[in-house]
Structures are given as structure tokens and as C-alpha cells.
């Protein structure tokens, strides 16, 4: 009797205990949750466009490129949010522009020039961080610290997400046309370079924001994995963007809970849950692998 009344009025115990209590009881979990929401809203839409522009691996390369800048900031000022952020943004922009210049002025294609720059950047970054050497700091830079976001980091991530959403709204039509038919956009307007470089700036900004939470090595994870999973389900661009954001935030929540209960690092947990969503989509989605194995459905009249 009592038991049934409880079940009717309050959520089942398992929900409160396992899903809500970590967030209601611990401030650091709430901060991490807010960080994940901001990343899902800002970084993931950018990741959708990276995916659609076939630049997924380029995003990966650029995430490594911001490391030496952040590391130089670290070398000069220690674990200072501002210095590492500005260093990362500057390094990212320099590498994007340098790779663009090399692509235009030499016979190397963009992927080759970026690969060269990011390998050098990664090596230089790790070297610089180790110069001042505590391993803990190196781990922080490489893998982030979503469970230890302070006010400044959280504000930074939220600001970058807001700026990103605003810029994407402004750039949306030129960016879609730049992805879909760049020659046409060049023919009718001068928006093409604005869309291209504006978008690359957004990529750098969001990599820096992701770097504070998930580290340089995994910042791309929350951009590309939810986008790729959503691409397998969605046919239109609005649905694709919405679904990717939902996947990213859902993975963030699930990853944080996994980290909390199983006592594993949060960054990798989040990215692994993103990966799980991706693999499930890969199997089950209309654009995935299993559809080709299913029995052929009877065809339509026309």
C-alpha cells in the first residue's frame, strides 16, 4: 500500500538515485552538465558543417594545432584560462591561414599541408608543456577537465557557444551554399570567402572551448561523432542539426553519469558514449549498415 503510493507520487528510486542525485548533490556535476549543454549547442552544429564539408579529419588536425599556443600560454602564465585560450585561438588561426596559404601557393593539397602543420604542432605542444613539467598539467591540457570547470571556464564555454549560434544564424545561408555549390555562390556574391574563413574561425573557437572541457585530443569527438550519427538518420539539414545537438547533449549527460558511477575519467566517457550512439546509428539507421541486409520491401507504384 505504502509502496504503491510512493511509486505514484515520486519518480522511481532508480531514477533519483542514479540519474538525478549526482547532479542535485554535487555542484561540480552541475557545472559539468552546463558545460556539456554549451558544447552541444555550440560545437556540435559546427561539427555538422565540418562533416558536410568533408572536413572531419581537418577538424581533428586543427584541434592538435591549437595545442602549442595553449602550451605557450601555459608556459608563460601557468594554468591560466585567459592565456591558454588566447594562445590556442592564435595558434589555431595561424595554422588555418598557413595551411590555406600553402594549399594555394604550392602543389600540396589542403589535407597534406594540414597534416604537416598539425604533426609539428602536436610535437611542439607536448614539448613545451613538458618543459615546465608536471604530468598532471599535461594530462589536463591533453584530456581536459570537464569535472573541474571553474566559473571562468564555464563562462568562456557558454560565451563561445552563444557567439557560435549567433554567427551560424548570420552565416547560415551563405555557408549552406558554400558547402553545396561554392561556384554558384562565387558567381552571385562575395560571401564565399566570408563564409569559408568565418566558418574556420568558428571551428577554432569551438575547438578551444572543447579543449577546456575535453582536452585537445578529444574536443573533436563531441563535434563529429554526434554529427555523423545524426547524418545516418536525418535527410534534411534542420533535422540533422537538431538531432546532432540532442545526441551530443544526451551523450554528455550519459558520459557524466558513467564517469560518476563507474569512477572513470569524464572526457573519455563522454566521447565513448558519443561513439556508442554512432555505432548504434551505424547499425540501425536508415543510412546505416543493416538496411542493406534487410529483406527488400515491396516497391512503390511510382
Amino acid at each position, binding site marked *: 500500500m505504502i509502496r504503491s503510493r510512493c511509486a505514484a507520487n515520486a519518480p522511481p528510486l532508480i531514477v533519483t538515485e542514479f540519474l538525478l542525485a549526482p547532479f542535485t548533490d554535487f555542484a561540480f556535476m552541475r557545472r559539468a552538465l552546463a558545460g556539456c549543454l554549451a558544447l552541444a549547442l555550440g560545437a556540435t552544429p559546427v561539427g555538422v558543417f565540418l562533416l558536410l564539408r568533408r572536413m572531419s579529419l581537418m577538424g581533428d588536425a586543427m584541434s592538435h594545432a591549437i595545442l602549442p599556443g595553449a602550451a605557450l600560454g601555459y608556459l608563460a602564465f601557468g594554468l591560466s584560462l585567459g592565456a591558454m585560450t588566447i594562445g590556442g585561438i592564435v595558434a589555431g588561426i595561424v595554422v588555418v591561414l598557413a595551411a590555406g596559404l600553402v594549399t594555394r601557393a604550392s602543389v600540396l593539397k589542403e589535407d597534406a599541408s594540414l597534416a604537416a602543420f598539425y604533426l609539428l604542432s602536436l610535437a611542439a605542444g607536448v614539448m613545451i608543456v613538458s618543459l615546465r613539467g608536471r604530468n598532471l598539467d599535461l594530462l589536463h591540457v591533453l584530456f581536459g577537465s570537464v569535472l573541474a570547470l571553474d566559473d571562468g571556464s564555464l563562462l568562456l564555454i557558454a560565451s563561445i557557444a552563444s557567439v557560435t549560434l549567433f554567427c551560424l544564424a548570420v552565416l547560415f545561408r551563405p555557408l*549552406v*551554399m558554400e558547402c*553545396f*555549390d561554392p561556384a*554558384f555562390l*562565387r*558567381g552571385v*556574391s562575395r560571401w564565399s570567402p566570408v563564409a569559408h574563413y568565418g566558418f574556420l574561425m568558428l571551428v577554432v573557437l569551438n575547438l578551444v572551448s572543447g579543449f577546456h572541457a575535453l582536452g585537445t585530443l578529444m574536443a573533436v569527438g563531441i563535434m563529429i561523432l554526434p554529427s555523423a550519427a545524426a547524418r545516418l538518420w536525418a*535527410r*534534411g539539414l534542420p533535422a540533422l542539426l537538431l538531432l546532432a545537438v540532442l545526441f551530443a547533449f544526451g551523450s554528455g549527460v550519459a558520459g557524466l553519469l558513467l564517469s560518476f558511477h563507474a569512477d572513470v575519467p569524464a572526457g573519455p566517457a563522454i566521447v565513448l558514449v558519443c561513439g556508442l550512439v554512432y555505432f548504434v546509428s551505424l547499425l540501425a539507421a536508415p543510412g546505416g549498415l543493416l538496411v542493406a541486409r534487410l529483406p527488400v520491401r515491396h516497391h512503390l507504384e511510382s
Partner: protein
Amino acid sequence: MHPAPPPLIRIENLTLGYDRHPAVHHLSGDIPAGALVAVIGPNGAGKSTLLKGIAGELRPIGGRILMPGLPPGALAYLPQRGEIDHSFPVSVFDVVAMGLWREIGAFGGLSRQQRQRVREALAAVGMSGFEARPIGSLSGGQLQRARFARLMLQDAPLILLDEPFAAIDSRTVDDLVQLILGWHREGRTVLTVVHDFEQVRRHFPTCLLLSREPVAFGPTAQVLTPEMLARARRLSEAFDEDAPECQIEQPAQALPPDAGPHAHGHAHRHEHGSHRH
């Protein structure tokens, strides 16, 4: 006696090319407003290059193209191989609506009337009912029809079409030709690269025969003659890697419009480089 209207496009001793090698060599001529011109010639004759030059995608390496009466952006260009990403998740309606860019820009919304125009453009190319289909599901001919619909919405006085009928079935070609003739009747200037001479004879009043050197420009009946075509074939297509610099400052004879076929005299094959005009 009224004076002839000024030409829409004036081409003055134009040389276009890649890496200093000319692909269009010393071309001069006037294209009057409202002309329907077929640009013909063998592969590698510089037809696409000429269209690219007029569209502003390629900077001349000699001479110039003047379009005094044409406001900037009032030109619609359909490249042969577009850079369209077929896997991109956009609908046919969205793609065709891109033709309204000059009216709505980057931010404007589509009014009810503009939506209606997009649907009418789709109907005009025989694609009613395809509005919501993803662009990747279209066949080659359907995609070309959609590109024509987008072109219609650009509402440009000058239209450049680079081999619009390549790999398109005859029924689609017939429909597209009717659209082109409609634009001609509306007074638009149309330059089209075509390979089918029969089509050119039937539909195009004016012809520009290129073979890197300009061969002939004028009324189709006078350009599409066996002698002219043989001359076009004889002119070499090959680049000579070590060609000396071209010394000709001005072609021997300019090619006035509608003045009958002109053989463009010199058949030299020099590298083109340091013209000082």
C-alpha cells in the same frame, strides 16, 4: 536611319589562358544585346575558357572584355561541371530558390510570391512535384532541369551556358532548347556552348567558331560551312611547352558582328606572355 545599339559585350583583342599558354587567342568582336550565340569548335578550342572569362572567373592575360551596359551581378553562368555536392541534404526547392539570391541576399526570407515563383520555375522545367525531393536523388537530366530553373530565377539579362546538353537525353534537350529560345524572345543575351551542329542550324541565329584562334563569327549559315569547319580542325590543339613569346600586338583583322565569316589570318602558335598594352 537609327544608329546601331551599343554592343552588350565588346571583346577587344582578348587572350585567355592558363600558365601563360593561350586557350583563346586574340579574339575581338561585339556581341549585341539580345543575341543568341552558339559557341562551337572542337574540344580544347577555348569555348569554356571564353565563357569563364566573360563570367569573370578567369583574368585575361591580354586584351579585355567590356560590358558597359551590364550592372554587376546581372549575369547568370551555368558551368559545365558544377561543383555541386550531391550528397548535401538540401531539397530541390531550396536549390532552385538559391536563384533568388540577388533579391533576398544572405538574410531575406522568401515571400509568398517568391515561393510561388520558385514553384513556377520548377513547373517551367517540367519538375513540378519534385520540390521536397533531396537533390541527391535526381537523375542527371533532372538535375540539369533544376539548374535551369535556378538560372531562370536569377533573371539575368546575360546568360552563359557551358555545354548544357552534355549527357542529356533528347527529350530533355528539346525542353531546355525551348527554354533558351524563350529567353531569347524575352530579349536576353544568351551564349551557349553546343556540339550538335544540327541543333545550331535549327535554333541559333549567330555562331562563334573557335579553335583557340577565332575562326569565324557571324550568321550561322555563313559560319557552319565545310571550309570553316575544316579550318577549325586544322588549327592545332596542343600546347607547345617551349613556345616563344607571342609577338603580335593586334590581330590582323577584327571580327565585327554579323559581318560574315572572317578567317582569322595568322595561325601562329606562340607562347603568350609579355603583352604591354
